[in-house]
């Protein structure tokens, strides 16, 4: 770390006649911001600021947990919410830290980039007057070919060489700074990729039940939740349609999943309809979107025949409750039930709904509340029937998975019995209507996403890594050779070729590089012709290790 010394944080103020205070302040703040120390402090702040993001539940990771937290800590939660505690990574303070850090970063790399390009294009500097003052120094007899031979040896070892009269200057290891700049620039590009994805990306989640009648086309309305970037509008969504034909899941005897596969039919605009498979870890790649399999479950097929003999069928997904056996709960609602065929009128107090618990593998004996295995070995549907005004007309959007509890509390909906059904069984209700459990269909939980920044991210991460390695393992160093006659420096600059001439060599590691002494010694040996001139010098790392061996005590 010698070349990249920090620029002074507070430069000595030049006495001027009318110092522009504001300008000076700005310049000073900028210097301060772009110092490595500030970068370090900001890095630290960034790490600390991320901690609450793992301790508190986050809205965009698990919104349910945030709600839970609100009920558990009614006093604390709103205050934390105000501070952005449930959306740490989108909060003002987190953004402020990383924006400052990246400003500092850009302010830091631009001048270095300029300097480095200049350094890459300029020749190695003139040798210092006194080579014996450099960390490495040696005197050797002039090799046969003179200065040109020395330069040749150096060039063969991939040094950048300049010959000035009887002097040779050489430098090596520009890769360190190049890598460092690539690394830091890649960090900026990574952030740009993230921003691109944020602005132009979109995503949506939904459940998809098997069967052609349940196929889904990609529109905003078709998603239970959708997030559109600020620069996306609903018209931009690619118009593909997907039907789930089959879903296969294999499980181990312990109930642990072993493999999943979803077979779908895809219909993309302008393309032939095709069949495709996808699974966890291998998403379905579509034009302008990817489809990911996140979960799966069962949708019981429930047929209700009302008191007038009219049948309706509900095939709604039952949500899994999180246990290994895929116990799921849900609702079948029939708001149009009991329409009087004579008057054609509907009595909203005769709407029907069934809430249920579905157990793919019910236990041998009651209570039938927990499934024992995720496949349908002994399926059982535990239904509770409700009659009354379901509250679906009130204009309040209700959940398709849960009965509106307000309607029960106010007595508008009444429970009219419960029963456990096996597939194919039916249950006659008090008013002569029947409900049948016909079986189930599979459903899958899908996440559909489009992230235009992902390509940028991938490429910049590649550069980031390559740059990092160059930066960490590269070592910049200089060597100088000067031909002298009779062992004393020759100020005349003439090139002596007589056998009695000597060469003085000096070496300067410009970065922390303990192996330099070894490399220098090898180089001198190669130049003077003894040793193994054509064998390449040991790699830097080897050199450092060897040098390190002697540092310890024993």
């Amino acid at each position, binding site marked *: 770390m010698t070349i990249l010394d920090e620029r002074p944080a507070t430069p000595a103020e030049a006495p001027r006649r009318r110092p522009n205070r504001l300008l000076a302040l700005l310049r000073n703040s900028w210097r301060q911001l772009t110092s490595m*120390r500030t970068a370090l402090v900001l*890095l630290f702040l960034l790490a600390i600021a991320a901690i609450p993001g793992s301790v508190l539940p986050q809205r965009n990771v698990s919104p349910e947990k945030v709600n839970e937290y609100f009920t558990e800590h009614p006093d604390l939660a709103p205050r934390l919410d105000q501070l952005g505690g449930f959306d740490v990574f989108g909060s003002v303070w987190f953004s402020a830290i990383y924006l400052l850090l990246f400003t500092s970063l850009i302010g830091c790399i631009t001048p270095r980039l300029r300097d480095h390009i200049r350094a890459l294009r300029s020749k190695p500097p003139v040798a210092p007057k006194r080579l014996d003052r450099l960390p490495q120094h040696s005197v050797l007899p002039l090799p046969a070919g003179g200065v040109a031979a020395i330069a040749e040896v150096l060039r063969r070892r991939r040094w950048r060489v300049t010959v000035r009269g009887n002097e040779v200057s050489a430098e090596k290891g520009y890769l360190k700074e190049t890598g460092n700049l690539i690394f830091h620039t890649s960090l900026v590009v990574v952030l740009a990729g993230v921003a691109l994805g944020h602005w132009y990306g979109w995503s949506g989640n939904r459940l998809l039940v098997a069967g052609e009648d349940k196929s889904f086309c990609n529109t905003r309305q078709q998603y239970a939740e959708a997030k559109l970037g600020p620069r996306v509008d609903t018209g931009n969504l690619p118009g593909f349609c997907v039907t789930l034909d089959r879903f296969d899941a294999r499980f181990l005897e312990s109930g642990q999943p072993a493999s999943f596969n979803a077979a779908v039919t895809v219909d993309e605009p302008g393309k032939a309809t095709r069949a495709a498979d996808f699974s966890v*870890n291998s998403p379905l790649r579509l034009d302008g979107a990817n489809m990911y399999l996140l979960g799966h479950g069962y949708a019981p097929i429930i047929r209700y025949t009302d008191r007038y003999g009219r049948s309706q069928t509900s095939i709604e997904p039952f949500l899994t409750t999180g246990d290994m056996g895929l116990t799921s709960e849900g609702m079948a609602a029939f708001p149009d039930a009991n329409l009087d065929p004579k008057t054609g009128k509907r009595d909203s107090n005769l709407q029907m709904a069934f809430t249920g618990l579905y157990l793919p593998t019910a236990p041998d004996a009651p209570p039938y509340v927990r499934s024992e295995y995720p496949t349908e070995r002994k399926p059982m549907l535990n239904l509770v029937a409700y009659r009354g005004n379901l509250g679906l007309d009130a204009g309040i959007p209700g959940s398709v998975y849960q009965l509106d509890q307000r309607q029960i509390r106010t007595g508008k909906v009444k429970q009219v019995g419960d029963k456990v059904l096996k597939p194919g069984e039916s249950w006659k209700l008090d008013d002569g209507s029947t409900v049948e459990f016909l079986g189930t269909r599979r459903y899958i939980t899908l996440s559909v996403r489009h992230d235009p920044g992902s390509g940028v991210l991938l490429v910049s991460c590649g550069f980031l890594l390559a740059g990092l*390695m160059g930066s960490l393992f590269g070592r910049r160093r200089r060597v100088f050779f000067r031909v002298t006659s009779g062992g004393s420096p020759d100020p005349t600059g003439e090139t002596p070729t007589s056998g009695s001439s000597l060469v003085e060599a000096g070496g300067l590691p410009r970065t922390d590089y303990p192996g330099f002494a070894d490399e220098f010694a090898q180089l001198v040996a190669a130049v003077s012709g003894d040793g193994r001139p054509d064998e390449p010098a040991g790699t830097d790392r080897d050199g450092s290790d060897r040098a390190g061996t002697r540092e310890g005590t024993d």
Partner: protein
Amino acid sequence: MSALSDQLVTFAILAYLVAMISHAVEFALGNARVRAAVSAPVRERELVGAGAGAPGGTILKSTEPTPPVAPVAGRAAGRARLAGLVAVVATVVAALLHLVALVTRGVAADRMPWGNMYEFVLTVTFIGVAAWLVVLAKRPSLRKLGLFLTLVMVLLVATAELVLYVPVVPLVPALNSYWFVVHVATIVFSSGIFLLGVVPAVAFLMRRGYEAGKRSFPYTLAKRLPAAAALERLTFVLHAFSFPIFTFAVIAGAIWAEAAWGRPWGWDPKETWAFISWVVYAGYLHARATPSVKRNVATWIAVLGFFTMLMNLFGVNIFFTGLHSYGGL
């Protein structure tokens, strides 16, 4: 097969224990040697008044190796060298047992042995000890660090066996991917190197204090340690070696997360802590490259980085739930 693996782990712990005790004996005899040497004539010495913990309150000014002068000291030194040798041999034996335990575990599970926290800790510690043996082969002078290393090994492997143990089970489908293997292999590898890296880091902090004249409790332990500069250098080399691997591992994890969950990065607790560790280690490398930051400050950052790794390994699996919660607890 899995029972064999479990037994081998127990034996490995015992072997680490033997190594640790031998290192401790070497340490103790080393002190004896100093004491004996002090009594020899012509030695320049320095009296340190309140040398709490330093036997006799007298220590040598020179931190360089002291050739045994008195015959008593010679015998002690010989015994110390023997203890050191035993320690190294025991470490090698322990590492071999450790390796075979991992292999049999993998064979029993029919996959790479890093599907849950137990296996993960077992693998990380193995990488740590293997890397230590490489360092030791290259720089035998650092042998005395083995005391700290074996201490860490005993603690972690025993924690794995006593607290984290789970029977062999296959992987859940989300974990069944090439990127998973790449991701976890590199995470395990870099964690192992970071684990090893924290040993010279802590040793450096103690030794530096010792060289600066501190003679209170933790610093006196550093009396027989290698020179501070060498420890600091080793700390840096290990971290600089590990950091790009860790960076790659995090990137591989993001690629895998994209395929499995549809997003490369989602601030799941595990991801958040990986981010924190990455930033802290970047901070360490940065601090070390910043001239105005002292080396011990930088080294503290490296130690802090290791705590964030531990937090990710244990804390996140135990305290938080997220997509990564397959720790098996």
